[in-house]
Structure formats: structure tokens, C-alpha cells
């Protein structure tokens, strides 16, 4: 069972590291990486669950593993959209700040709609 304990620690650490980076790092690209780290941790949890469910001659429970495959593709697609927006913003504005500006003039203060 030791590999499972190690994997558990890896999964939990990835989630923790991801959450930390997700909250603290201001750059959107880094937030995206952090999100993917959390994703990796979550998928590992599925993997651990799958491994624990080895039965009937299978070394794993195939259902969670199949879900991970779906999940990885979805996470990739999400990253692609985020990257596209970030790149576009760099082209238009030269940078991205995800936080609203502090004084009254908040995001989208344009008069035209």
C-alpha cells in the first residue's frame, strides 16, 4: 500500500501548491499553471481511487481512469481558451491585470455599451 500513500501525498501536495499559487500569483499564465497543478492533483486522486479499486483480476478500476482521460482533455481545452484570451489581451493592451482597479473607475467603465 505504500505507493498509494506516496501518491496520496503527491496528490494532496499538488492541490495545496496549486491553491497557493492560484491565490497568490498575479500573472494569469501562472494562475493557469496553478490550475493545471490542482488538476493534476485531482486526477491523481481519481488514480488512487482507481488503484484502490483493483478487483476481479484488474489491477485498477477502469471507471475513474476513464474519467481522468476525459478530464485531462477538458483541462487542456480550458487552458487553450485561457491562453488565447491572454495572448489577445497582450496584443491589445500589452499586459493583463486580473484585479479591478481600486479607485472608482472600475472595469468596463466605458460609457458606450
Amino acid at each position, binding site marked *: 500500500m505504500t505507493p498509494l500513500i506516496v501518491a496520496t501525498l503527491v496528490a494532496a501536495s499538488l492541490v495545496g501548491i496549486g491553491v497557493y499559487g492560484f491565490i497568490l500569483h498575479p500573472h494569469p499564465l501562472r494562475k493557469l499553471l496553478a490550475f493545471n497543478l490542482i488538476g493534476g492533483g485531482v486526477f491523481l486522486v481519481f488514480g488512487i481511487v482507481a488503484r484502490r479499486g483493483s478487483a476481479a483480476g484488474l489491477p485498477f478500476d477502469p471507471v475513474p481512469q476513464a474519467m481522468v482521460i476525459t478530464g485531462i482533455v477538458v483541462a487542456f481545452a480550458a487552458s487553450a481558451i485561457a491562453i488565447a484570451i*491572454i495572448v489577445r489581451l497582450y496584443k491589445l493592451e500589452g499586459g493583463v491585470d*486580473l484585479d479591478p482597479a481600486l479607485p472608482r473607475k472600475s*472595469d468596463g467603465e*466605458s460609457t458606450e455599451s
Partner: protein
Amino acid sequence: MMELAANTPAGSLLVLAILLPVVGILLAFALGGRSAERIALGLAPLSLALAVAIATAVARAGKPVTYMIGGLQPPLGISLRADGLSATMLVAVAVIMIAAMLYARAKFGVPEGSGESRSALTFWVMVQAVWGGLAMIVLSSDLFNLYVALEVLTFAAVPLVCIEGRPEALVAALRYLIFALFGSICYLLGVALFYGAYGTMDIILLSQQVEAKPVVWVAAALMTTGLLAKTALFPLHLWLPSAHSNAPAAASAVLSGLVVKGSFFLLLRLWFYVLPALQAEDVMRILGALGSVAILGGSALALMQARLKLLIAYSTVAQIGYLFLVFPLAAGAHEWSHIGWGAGVMQILAHAFAKAAMFMSAGLLAESLGHDQIARLNGAARALPLTFLTLAISSVSLVGLPPSGGFVAKWLMLQAAVASGQWIWSAPILIGGLMAAGYAYRILTPALRHGEALLKRPAQPRREAIALALALVALGLGFTPESFYDFIEIGRPLTMGPSP
């Protein structure tokens, strides 16, 4: 052995209700151009008919309609299940989506002879994706399938936010996307833990097995907060005001009226369908408290906005807060739970219709006046009477004045609060209503005063009528018959049913 679920007659309708928008997405994307719009508008009535048929089937059977995909029983297969609540939502979604589509034709319609454009294709594909995603959310009975549905919804909603391509809109969309992804991944983590503990993702099977133990609580907490983030419950609303105010009106109507309800619906599923046996009253209270803070904070902030669309967006923050009072007011198997549940569902519906109508009106107003500054609305009601009539009627519902869905929701909420002895919840309900009256006053009174409003573009009666129709639905919800409240209890576990 667990009771084996079986397909019920009309079960195939559930699959079709999900597949129809999917077919629309694929065809619209493949054919593009003018066809995208035609396909979306052509399939919409069919989807509405399906929704009505499903609701009728549920009402007639008096129990949920189910379908096992591929003929496979859960836990191995995925099952779809339409109960009273999901059937209701399905119909509401269909009506609002059709209204939004018709409304959007003026902006995203592809005129004869012109080629495909970026915004048009995006809109017609994504709007169907929102529909499909919502249909999955209300019908699916499998937690992982629901995760895919959540992502469909996110992927559809984000491009709608930045469809106009302005930098502010892009920032808003990015903020929304990243935070929503974070929310979904937390939800997914909870799903993994549930599977680890019980080896199934099926809502019904889980609800029969769950017990109060740490892994369930961690899973529930993660899923809940993840969904709160996607629902933009104050103080997790960082994305909502900018996203909803930067999207074009038709999209805002859908986003504010329906999309946030999607993740909220999953919260209902989680706490009222998966975990009701645990009777987690403290959790319910925390959710109620967060909702109260949202009501007060959102309303106060709405009072201060200079722009109409931002005001409406903050009003959504507040109205979302009301939704969360359903947790303390409808949990458990008490006599008053039935009232609280009715209140919550009515609040979902009333807000969906009223808010969609408001955003549409705000869009028309901005198009006609060339701005949406509240301070410069003097005399606008005379220039755009139908638009302001719509705003007024929707406000009546938001404030909770009779006869309107909003009134019924508040009325029932207060009754549940009083009957359950939880007077404390009546304070946010009432203060929120007062502040809603305040911001409605801010919009309506200057517009009704004298003054000359210069129209940059004449009023568009056809689109005004669409918004007005939605507002009238919000009003008409005030006349909901008693039987409706029994209908939405169909398939809800642990209920007392209607009081004798």
C-alpha cells in the same frame, strides 16, 4: 439489493432534450454563416416542445421520468432523471433562451448575402451550448456527467462574455474563466472523493448510502465552495459584475438569468438530493448567512453604480443571495420545508425572467441613447416607454411587490422563516427588498421626469416586446396555482409533501 431503476415511458425525451442542442452546435459549426442562425432558431421550438413534453410527462406520472443511457444501470451506466424541479427549469430555460435568441437576431443575425462573422458564429454556437449545458445539468443524475455539463456551460459562457472583443470584456472573460475553472476542479475533487468512498457517481445511489463521515464532508465542502465560486455568491463574486455588464445584452440576459442558476441547481442537487439524510443544519445556516451577506452587499453596491448594466449586475449578486436562503428554509423534513422549497424555486424562476428582461431592456436603452449612465436618463421613459415599462415590471418582481413571482418568493420565504422560528432570515429578505426598491427608484424616477432624451437610434418595438414578454412572465408567476408547489416536490427525497 438496491431497487433497480428502470426506464420510464417518455424517458427518451430526456436524451433528446440534451442531444438536440448538441446537434445544433455541431451543425451550426460545420455549416457556419447564415445556417448557424437558422439552425439555432429552427431547433429552438423543438427544444421548447421537448421541455413541455417532459414537464407534462412528469406531471402525469407524478414521479420522476428516468432513462438509462445505453440501457446500462447505474453505477456503471449514466442515468438521466427529470423530476419536478428539473422539468420546471427546463421549460424556463427554453422560454428564456428562445426570447434571447429572437432578441439577439438584431445584433447577431446574418443578413442575406453577407459572409460568416466572428461574433455571429460564436453567438449561435455558444447560445446553443448554454442551452445544452443547462439541459444536461438539470437532467443528468451522474456527478461526473454533471462535471462535463458544468464545463460545457463555462466554455459556452466565457466566449459570450467577450464576444464584443473589447479589452475590458476580455479581462472580464479571463477572470470568469480562470475562476470558474477553479470552481469546477474543486467540484471534481469532491466527485473523486465520493467515488472513492462509495464507488458510484449516481445521485440516487449515493443518497441511499451517504453517511456522516469526514470524507463525505470534505467532498461536500469542496463541491459546495466550487459551485459557490461558479454561482458568484458574495464574496466570491469577483468575476460577475464585470462579466455580466460587459457581455452584449442578449448574452447578459442568459448569463444572469440562467447560467448562474446552473451551478446553483447543482448545489440544490447536492444538498437536497444527495445529502439530505445528513441533516447538516449548521452548513445550511452558513450558506444562509453567506446568502444574507450577498443580499445586503449586492443591493448596497447596486445602489451605488453609475451605469445601468453594472447596477443590474450587482442586483444579480444580491438576488443570488436570496437563492441561498432556501438552504436553511427548506432543509429537513418539516412542515415548513415545503414552503421554503417553493420559495426557492420561485425565486429562481422570478429572478431568471425578471433579470433577463432587465438586461434586454438595458441593452435596448444603451443602443437607443448611446449610453447607460443612470444620471443621464432624464425623460428617457417618454422616449422609450416600452423599455421602461419592462424595467418597471421587472423591478416590481425584484423588489417583491405583488402580484409578481418575486413577491410570491419573498412571501413564502418569510412564511418559512417565521414558521420555522428562524426570524433572523427575514431581516436580509426585507432589507434587500428595501434596497431593491431603492435602486429601482434610482432607475425609474429620473426617467419618468421631464426632460428631453436624445435618441441616437429609434426604439425597436419588436425587441422591446420580447423583453416585455419576459417581464410579464415574471409578473404572471405571481398567479402560480397551488398545484405547482406539489409538482416541484416530485422526486425530492425527504419531503413531507404538501401540508394536509
